[in-house]
């Protein structure tokens, strides 16, 4: 929904993230501290200059409430709020922080996210025995998205090999990124032969459990010129969220999203974001996109829903190189969730950090040539919540 929007009202003046991976010897406190200290250093500010904070944390075992910010960072009792919105938690924390700046209430705010998944062990997302209705089946996260893969195979003729190409491309990009969880390249054969997690998705079709944190410092554009990135601070061009059902499998055949070959929350969030940013040809205008690739099928469907290609064409376009880091629309030049894993609350802030650095021309892994406009996208739950943010340099 774009009533007035916040285009060009919010500037990113610093950002950073931790190394992602199995950070056994670090707690969530260590991780957020690390990301936060790097971000304020990047912005050239002290922690006392932060007026308020928003933090994305999904799981209760990582932390509850905004008091986590105080526990981890000691900001002297300043306002702090925890945001939970599935895999979009981090990006929604950023969205709320952006609104606080755009409203004029604060000068400098922190948007951050952290998740310490590995403390619960690495065999899939925890909690599936606790939440939800006791009798309605609770498919695992890969199972939710697999049901879309099954329909796409049926409708579009996509295959396991088409999925494998997403994994191969993203691991190829991730191998170049010093902060990625996985830095090895894989082959199509490896991806296709991996053990099944939720048929037809195998191990290489799924992002990994991981630990990590990321943080961004926001201010008003007129203040941005007083800080370290005076010449290359990054503007928020659009910020949109769409929420759909938690239970797409109950939507009747004539209801929204019932075909399982598109994610209506992504379609709507993209529509809002493009309208706000004034983008009419996303394929041409978006130079670098960090797109939610929790599963390989998710990236393919997202590329269609984000209008990077026509419906049913994502697999072919990927094969032709459209989504390579040096292709027409670079998708996940960082290596994506496939290479970083998915510490849920942190992922949105990590993507925004990647895109900020891409448009500043200082990407840590693969730099997309001449990137001016970038997009970050999260899709959470059972394709329930989508957050889409567009960033660009000031004009």
């Amino acid at each position, binding site marked *: 929904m774009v009533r007035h929007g916040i285009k060009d009202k919010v500037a990113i003046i610093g950002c950073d993230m931790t190394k992602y991976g199995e950070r056994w010897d670090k707690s969530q406190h260590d991780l957020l501290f690390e990301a936060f200290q790097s971000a304020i250093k990047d912005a050239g500010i002290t922690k006392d200059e932060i007026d308020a904070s928003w933090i994305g944390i999904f799981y209760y075992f990582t932390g509850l409430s905004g008091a986590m910010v105080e526990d981890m960072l000691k900001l002297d009792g300043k306002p702090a709020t925890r945001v939970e919105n599935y895999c979009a938690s981090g990006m929604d924390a950023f969205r709320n922080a952006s609104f606080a700046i755009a409203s004029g209430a604060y000068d400098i705010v922190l948007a951050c996210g952290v998740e310490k998944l590995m403390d619960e062990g690495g065999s899939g997302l925890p909690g599936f025995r606790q*939440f939800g209705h006791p009798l*309605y089946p609770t498919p*695992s996260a890969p199972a939710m998205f697999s049901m879309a893969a*099954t329909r796409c195979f049926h409708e579009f003729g996509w295959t396991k090999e088409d999925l494998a190409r997403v994994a191969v491309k993203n691991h190829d990009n991730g191998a170049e990124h010093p902060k990625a969880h996985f830095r090895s390249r894989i082959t199509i054969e490896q991806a296709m032969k991996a053990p099944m997690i*939720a048929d037809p998705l195998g191990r290489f079709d799924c992002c990994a459990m991981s630990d990590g944190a990321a943080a961004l410092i926001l201010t008003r554009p007129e203040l941005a010129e007083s800080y370290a990135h005076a010449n290359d601070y990054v503007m928020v061009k659009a910020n949109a969220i769409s929420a759909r059902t938690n239970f797409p*499998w*109950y939507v009747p055949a004539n209801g929204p999203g019932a075909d399982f070959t598109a994610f209506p929350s992504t379609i709507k969030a993209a529509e809002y974001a493009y309208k706000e940013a004034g983008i009419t040809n996303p394929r041409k205008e978006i130079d670098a996109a960090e797109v939610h690739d929790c599963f390989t099928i998710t990236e393919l469907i997202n590329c269609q829903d984000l209008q990077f290609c026509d419906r049913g064409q994502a697999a072919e376009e990927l094969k032709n190189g459209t989504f390579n880091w040096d292709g027409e629309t670079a998708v996940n030049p960082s290596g994506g969730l496939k290479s970083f894993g998915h510490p849920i609350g942190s992922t949105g802030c990590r993507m925004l950090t990647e895109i900020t650095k891409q448009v500043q021309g200082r990407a840590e892994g693969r730099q997309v040539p001449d990137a001016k406009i970038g997009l970050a996208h999260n899709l959470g739950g059972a394709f329930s919540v989508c957050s889409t943010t567009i960033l660009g340099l000031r004009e």
Partner: protein
Amino acid sequence: MPVGIKSYGAYLPKYMLPREDISKAWDFPLVPGTKAVAMEDEDSLTMSVEAGLDCLSGIDPKTVDGVFFASTTQVYTEKDSASLIATVLDMRDDIVTADFTDSTKAGTTALARAVDTIKSNKDVNSILVVAADTRKPEPSTMWEFGFADGAAALLVADEENIPISIDDYYSVSANVTGPWKRADKDEFVRTFEVKTDGMFYVQSVTKAMSEVLKRNKLNPSEDIDIAAYYYNNPRAHSRISKMMKFGQGVAQDSLFFQVGDTGTPMPFMLLIASLRRPKPEAKIIMAGFGDGADAILMQVRDKDGVKAIGKGRMGFLGHQKSMTLLKNYNKFIEFKELLDKDRYTRKSSAVLIWRDTPSVYQWYGIKCKNCGSVQYPKLSRSCSVCRADDQFEDVKLAYKGELFTFTLDHLVGGAYLNTPVPRCVIDLEGGGRVLVDMTEIENPEKNVEIGMKVELTFRKYHEGGEFKNYYWKCRPVRGRP
């Protein structure tokens, strides 16, 4: 009006274990035949629902005035099963319900008491008597060759043109310690001396049957067409037949070789199996055994009526046809939960399940009066298609549908028996889209596909909250009407 059997239904689980697999597992002499084995997501209650659905096919459950449940393997003690079965079968709440337990003759006892209740109570004109057992045998004992799982249901009613009348019954009681299971200690059935057990069995069953025949002036060799009595080994069966002097082919023995000793429902099953080609006016004697015996005298009053029941139901033979062999003995051990493994469970709430009874047990959805779409479950008061507020009316959903999409989930909240679990999005006949797990499926990688037809089946799901959590699953079609 005559009281008798208006309808019947049966349930046999999908799988059979060859007895030679047991012989091989324990290095015992080879024993021929197979036995019916329920899956780990089945118990006496879920099998009763299956038999009840079969029995009530084409009959409005709201017209039935009671449920009597009979079993030695009831799932609760301080809570009955009959009321839960009645709820799942979508019956009224002003009905009579009771559990008959602790003896394998509980089925015939419940049947006799149903007749008593109907005759003595003008508000009660029909009772569904459903018997089920899933006795867990102690591994490497002789019980393992016999004990089998199944359920059968008889709808007893007082009405004109009853297809089979129940004309008389007679019971004997015998206090014998064997076989038994101590309520506070034993997981498995025990026995002291099988020879005396066999002797008491023969005495009780022959006495009950002889007395009821004698007082109705019937000659077993000439007047009886069908004899359906409990037995737990073929030798005992033929011994009774000889002692009673039943004619050739009268004593029903179609069960043991393929299905095994199903316990409480066995006499009902033998009766149902014998009704495929009923003789006009056929006289039937049925007997149950366990600490005594019940003998029940019945007669076919309307041959075509009996045939019509058979045509609309799976009954005994319909289930038998769709049974398949278990892969191996280990599968049996897994189904019987004889390995102390971590089992899938999750948080539960008895309050929430009670509130959602129409959705989760009675299989109701909602229909939007504005756009006409049928939806499940009742998650909201706003339509998920047209967004109209408060326009829903309840609608009964079909127990059949077609697979729209699916996945085979290997990642099911930690440990889980039988992974991968097929998660199936089903479009139900007549509307409504549901997500259910699939059961009774081998090689799901090959056998689950978009467009396949499925049936809904009521199953044990988990034991969250330390109680039995039941829900519907789907299965490849077995042919329930």
